[in-house]
């Protein structure tokens, strides 16, 4: 599967400091290189994204300073295959 949303992620990183000032802890919705809005919950952001763009890729990102890395040891240890996206 081709990695999608790279462009949106790059746009988020570029404007992250600004978002941290205004929307810390909220979820921002980004489509292509356009900021659509900030939402209290991820569910609200998804609903707004579907209503505006239908079933197309868009980025929902929580505005936090650091970012955690997911751990799935079953994948990490190769007990279950993990090819990335």
């Amino acid at each position, binding site marked *: *599967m081709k*990695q*999608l*949303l*790279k462009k949106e*992620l790059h746009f988020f990183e570029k404007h992250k400091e600004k978002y941290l000032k205004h929307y810390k802890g909220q979820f921002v919705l980004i489509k292509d290189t356009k900021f659509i809005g900030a939402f209290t*919950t*991820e*569910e609200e*952001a*998804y*609903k707004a*994204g*579907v*209503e505006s763009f*239908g*079933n*197309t*890729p*868009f*980025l*929902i*990102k929580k505005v936090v300073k650091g*970012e*955690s*890395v*997911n*751990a*799935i*040891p*079953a*994948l*990490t*240890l*190769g007990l*279950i*295959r*993990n*090819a*990335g*996206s």
Partner: protein
Amino acid sequence: MPVHNRFFLQPDGKLNPNVLVSTGPLLSVKVSIPKELADLYTKEKKAIPAPKAGFALIDTGATRTGVDKSVITELGVQPVGIARTLTAGGEVEQNLFPAHFRFPGENINIDFSSVLGVNLTGHKVGKQSIIVLLGRDVLSRFLLVYNGPGGFFSISF
């Protein structure tokens, strides 16, 4: 808060703790498109893809729930995020997808804003595939008791 017990039996119907050791704690699951997307499809008079059935393996080691990418592809759900995940080869970026889970045996429905798309191809128990790894994001809503000597586990939601 109902309690659901899942017993793991041998083919002859006898309880054997080794069956649970072999399979791991499994639940039947049906994965479908998220409610918001189903509502949109209904409004646009589009066909809603049939849910994909398989097993969910409870994985207390996983921080986040993952769904097999082939299931996501078949449902036609588009990504809503990118997350970093540790693998044997280091960190990889993986897309996040919204999804709806139904556990028919327990009558539990969960709408997820984002689950990891992971490769679970080829992992089967009997004739059914493992299509979901249930991580601690889901388990944060459950009470889970693993009874190894008894060969069963109990969940409450």
